[in-house]
Every structure is written in structure tokens, then in C-alpha cells.
């Protein structure tokens, strides 16, 4: 029960409507991401994400890291690389942490390029694969650093 509910029971209807408008104003302000010096709670889309999102996203990072590590192992297939890319992209889409999103998106991007290098047989694909593989390892290092893994 809201602590304001009991006093409201004794108020006349006009007061209720006035209060309702007040609630609507507050709702609209919060929906716009507004805040004030008095410390109004920001909406979900405003301000830094809660630390808990980083913690929870990092908790599920193990499978992403393992998949990406496997994708750059010698002999990995394009399908394996594509699967790892999909996992990274899923994390990038779902996270509310800017930090996790950025690093997971980097990993997804580089795995997408790595998949091209694995699946395209040209005279220079080995060079390209080495270049991008080094990038993927850098992405993994950044994710491990962020998540203390």
C-alpha cells in the first residue's frame, strides 16, 4: 500500500483530481528524462545505466568469450565464427551498459570481418585473417578487462 493512500481517502474529489494532475505531471516529466536539482529520479533512458547491468552482463560473458576464442582458433569454420558473432551481437543489443555494448559490438564487428576472411579464398585472405584475428584478440582482452575475467 502506498503511504499516501490513507490520507487520500479523506480528501474531496477536487483534491483528488488536482493530485492526479500532479501525478500526471510527474509522470510526464520522468518520461521525458527530466530531472531537477531536487533530485528527481531519472528515467531509464537518462543518465548512466545502473551498475547492476554491467554486473549481470559480465556474469553471462563467459560463453561469449569462449565462443570468440574458439572462433579464432586454427581451422575454425565460417559457421563457428558466425555463431560467435551472433552471441556477441546479442549481448550488444540487449545490454543496458554502454561499456558492455561498445566492447561487445566491437567484437561482433570484427568477427563479422573475420568470417569473411575465413570464407573467402583469395591470395591475400591469410594476411587479412591474421590482421583481423589480432583485432578479435584485442576485443577479447578489453572485455576480460572490463569484466575482471
Amino acid at each position: 500500500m502506498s503511504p499516501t493512500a490513507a490520507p487520500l481517502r479523506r480528501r474531496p474529489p477536487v483534491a483528488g483530481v488536482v493530485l492526479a494532475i500532479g501525478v500526471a505531471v510527474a509522470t510526464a516529466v520522468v518520461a521525458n528524462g527530466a530531472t531537477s536539482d531536487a533530485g528527481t529520479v531519472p528515467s531509464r533512458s537518462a543518465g548512466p545505466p545502473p551498475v547492476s547491468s554491467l554486473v549481470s552482463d559480465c556474469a553471462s560473458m563467459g560463453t561469449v568469450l569462449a565462443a570468440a576464442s574458439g572462433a579464432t582458433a586454427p581451422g575454425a569454420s565460417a559457421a563457428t565464427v558466425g555463431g560467435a558473432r551472433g552471441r556477441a551481437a546479442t549481448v550488444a543489443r540487449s545490454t543496458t551498459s554502454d561499456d558492455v555494448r561498445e566492447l561487445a559490438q566491437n567484437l561482433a564487428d570484427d568477427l563479422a570481418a573475420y568470417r569473411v576472411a575465413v570464407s573467402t579464398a583469395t591470395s591475400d585472405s591469410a594476411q587479412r585473417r591474421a590482421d583481423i584475428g589480432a583485432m578479435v584478440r584485442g576485443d577479447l582482452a578489453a572485455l576480460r578487462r572490463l569484466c575482471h575475467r
Partner: protein
Amino acid sequence: MAPAALDHTRTPRRSAALAAGVLVAGLGLAAVPLGAADGAVTTLYVGGTGCSDAGTGTASVPYCTIAKAAKVAVAGQTVLVSSGTYTDEVFPWHSGTSGSPIVFQPAAGAAVTISGAKHGFTISNQSWITVSGFTIESSPRDGIYVYNATGVTLTGNTVRTSGQRVSGSTAYGMYLNAMTGSVVSGNLVTNNSASGIFLTNGSTGNQIVGNESSWNAYGYVRNAVGIDLRAPGNVVRGNRVHDNEDSGIQSYPGGDNNTVVDNVSYHNMGFTTTVQSNCSQPPTGNTAGCLTGDHGIDNYGVTGGSVVGNTVYANVSAGINLEGVASGTTAGYTIADNVAVDNAIGCPDGAGGTFKCPRTRGNIRVDATSQLGTSVDFDLVNLSVAGTMMIWGSTSYTSLSAFRSASGQEPRGLQADPRFSNASGGVFTLQPGSPAIDSANSGAPGHLATDAAGQPRADDPSTANTGVGARSYDDRGAYEYQPTTSTGSTP
């Protein structure tokens, strides 16, 4: 939520009246983005004597931090920042509107640096934000980070020294994630520890115009690009990209249908004594060091783009490169009106000499996977020493004529000295008599009525018009020759 808690305390009629009141008031307010009310201040001030973040950001009592102003600024307000070095990450809490953006800029004559903040600016889930005229340096993460935003304008900023050149600690100058309908113009993005300007995750409909992106490098792996496109449907125009550790401009998987026009990409070529994980070492000179740099404009695993009217000079590997398209897929690229000269020749050996560049060669290269649906014409190419001029499929050609005969491409291509004003000094305007003058296809996709410097197309009266399209006097390359006496820029 409070209304639900109230419901069971009321009669149905009262509840209906209350709900209607909430609905009407809520709809009326929520439909309008939060903005500065009539008569409200349009300017918030930051920095200077007597500042206080507990105040209201007036000229007499300004905020102390830009972050505080970013927290309260709403549509239509401009945040003016006094000179100084600030250390706070600026994280706008509200959106502007298309007609009333929220603007962040230094006060008139002020020099403002944001140093050491995780990101100088983070624009996340807020739109219609303008950031203009700041210096952002030494951010542990990307200098400017944008996520899920539209109508963002980033203009006239300097973004440098983001991140560290250590695996896991690198950072981009500008990281633009799911950003749409935005403008990035006139920025200097330099010396960051990853690519300078990076677009990803569906960022589309953006204009990347007139920026300089240079000297970006990871340091331990050759991979920092001047402008890195992993997202489709953007226009990259009139930028200068040079001396980056990898390519000048690249479109990588995800970066289909980008238009790269009137850019200058040069000297993405260097030498480092730091061993890199993917380096090419010279056979002479400092054989322990590594060659850096790559293509002028690289298109890898992407389709449907245009590379038109660029000047591409002295990069380590193939100047304009297309490769890595999936088997059986139509690449569908248009390469036209470019001037590509002296690419993949004369790489530094670390001891003051040069050696034969070790990777892909040619001023223009279209690999075997990228030929389907690709058109190459109206380009001007040249090499100052003998070498590979062009590559089509798996075959290299030392002259344009041989390339033309074998491929059927470049029927109106030219092989000649473009007569740059001062190529070694980075000045790629054309001297009188350049064969690039009045010879372009003005109808090529993305070709513009102005050049990289914003100059109009001009008809040189001393040069016969050999171009095609609506204007037969447009020039190839990024810069339009401006004759002393012009006959006008319109037909």
C-alpha cells in the same frame, strides 16, 4: 504505481474522473518533448568565478561542471562553457528537438578542453544534441560515444589521444553506435589508440563531412583506420585522412551502400620500431621494425557502394581496394572520377630508404570476388616509377591500357601525371594543364556540384571539356581547379 494504489479506495465514478484527469494531463504533457518554457532561460553557463553546481547556471552564478549543465539542459537551451580544462564526462539527460536542439559549445573566444573523462561526451538514448568546438583529450575510453540517437551534430571539435596503445585499453576518437540522421563535420580526430571515426550497428543516413582523421594507431597491431564504416547508407565526403596505422577510409562487413566522395586519403604509410602482431618487416634497413599503413580506401566484404571523386595518394597497399565479397554476390560498386597515384610503391625501410611494398599493389584493385556488377571508369591513375598500376581479378597490370584491354573497364580512364600542387606537402589541388581538369563524369553516383573544399565546379577556358553528364567540365579527384578567369560554375 500511485493511481493503482488509489483505485480500491474510491467509488467507480471517482476513479473514472481521476483516471481521465491523469490521462488528459499525462497525454498533454508527454506528447511534447521537454523544452525551455516560454520566458525560460535559453542559455546555461558553465565555469568561471563564483560557479556552483547547486545554482541554476546563470551568468552570475554559472555551473562549475559541464556535466551538471548536461543534466538539466532541455530542448532549445545552449550551454556556454568558459575557458578551462574540465574533467567531467558530459552525459546529456534530455533530448532536444529538430527545431530546438540542445547545444554545447565554448563561450565566445573561449578554449575548452575536456581531459581525462571516461568519454568526453556520451550521448546515449538522447537525440538532437549539438557538440561544437571542444577539445577532448586523454579519455580512457572513446573521446565521443553516441548510442541510439538521431539528429546529433558533432562539429569543429578536436578529439585526440583517446585510450592507451595497449591491448584491451584502446579507444576510438568517435564511436558512433546506432546513430542516424546525424552530421559529423569539421572535426580533427587525431592520435587516438583505435580508429578515428567509427560507425557501427546500423548507423545510417549520416553525413561525415570535412573532417581530418590522422595518426590514429593501436601501436601493437596494424588496424587503426581514419574513418571506419561498419554500417550502411552513409555519406563520407570531403574528409582528409592520412598517416593512419591502417587504411584511410574503409567499409567493412555491415558497411554496404556507403558513398565515399571527394575525400583525400594519402600517406597512410609509416614505420615503427615497435613490433606488431601483424607487421610486414622490410628486407633491408631496419629489418626488425614494422611497416604501418594500408589502403587509401578499402572496401572489404561489402556491396553497393560508390567511390567517386577521391584523391588517393601514396598509401602502402592498393589505393582503392575492393575485395572479399561472398561468392556469387553482386558487388555492384561504382568507382569513378578518382585520382589515384603512386600507391603501393616506395615503402619506408626504417633507415631512410625504401623497399618494394609487401602487400597488395595497384592504384585500383578489384579482386576476383568483387567484379560482378562493378564499374570502373573516368579515373586518372599514375605511377612515378614502374610498378603495378591496376589489378582486375587475380591479374596485375602495369599500365592502364593493358588493364583496359583485358577487363573492358576504364574506357575513359587516363594514365598521366595529375600535376598536384605539392603532393609531398599534402596539397592536392591541381596545377594548370592537369589532365584531371574538365574530364570527369558529373553523373557518377554521389558526384557533387562542389569539391572537397566546397568550391563550385568551374570550367577552365583553356581546357577542352571531355567529361560527360550534366556538366562536362567537372574535374576528376577531390579538388576542382579554379581558373584565374572562370567562365562560371554553371553551364
